[in-house]
């Protein structure tokens, strides 16, 4: 049975690299602020009020999450797609997966945007 080459086009490959580099910066910042340097003995458990206080501390957090969320969603879903593509799936499955990931990606970004708009 002839198989489809497990190739991917240049643009998604490059976008995966570029978003990856941005994510290295975004994740170190995000983890430091919300996970690692969250001192439970001083700040207590994470609550709505605490997150709101952190996010409204600077206007730049809005810019930050506006860029971060779409990039991380793209990077995650495109990454999973690359793994699936490596298994040389048929054209039908390929279409199904792509459609599924596009829908999931848009849903995730919209849900995250509504969530953030409630916290800002």
């Amino acid at each position, binding site marked *: *049975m002839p*198989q489809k080459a497990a190739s991917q086009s240049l643009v998604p490959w490059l976008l995966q*690299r570029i978003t*990856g*580099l941005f*994510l*290295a910066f975004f*994740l*170190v910042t995000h*983890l430091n602020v919300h*996970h*690692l*340097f969250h*001192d*439970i*003995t*001083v*700040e*207590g*458990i*994470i*609550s*709505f*009020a*605490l*997150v709101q206080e952190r996010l409204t501390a600077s206007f730049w957090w809005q810019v930050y999450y506006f860029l971060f969320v779409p990039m*991380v*969603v793209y990077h*995650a*879903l495109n*990454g*999973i797609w690359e*793994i699936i593509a490596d*298994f*040389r799936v048929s054209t039908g499955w390929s279409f199904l997966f792509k459609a599924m990931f596009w829908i*999931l990606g848009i849903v*995730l970004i919209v*849900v*995250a945007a*509504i*969530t953030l708009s*409630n*916290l800002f």
Partner: protein
Amino acid sequence: MKFSEKLKGTAQDVNLNRNIGNFSFWLHRITGIGLSIYLVMHIFVLSSAIGGPESFDKRMGQVQNPFFAVLEVLLIAGVFLHMLNGLRITITDFFAWSRGHKTLFWIITVIFIAVMILTLVLQWPKFFMENYTGGGN
């Protein structure tokens, strides 16, 4: 070729190529899948904020305890393994330095160990339930 045969071929490939490149390739895929699953859960848990402060605090209260603090260490390990290895791949590719990929692997291993020691120090108070009572918020 059936999917099961493809998986079998993959397993054989791993077994035949026991080297740093292959190891980090699989490490990148496994952490990538794990982090993607976490991302979906993370957005889902935080979306409780849409229901207002009460629903957010209730949901966040369920995921803040020593058990999740230990899982969080695994998450951070996954993030940094994927991040450092991703940077290694990018440097190897963009600077045509494939001869140095093994050296880079050991450099990122050292950075990873340092990051994880810092992570454990910072996470330490979250491993004890008594630290979750009280709090400023």
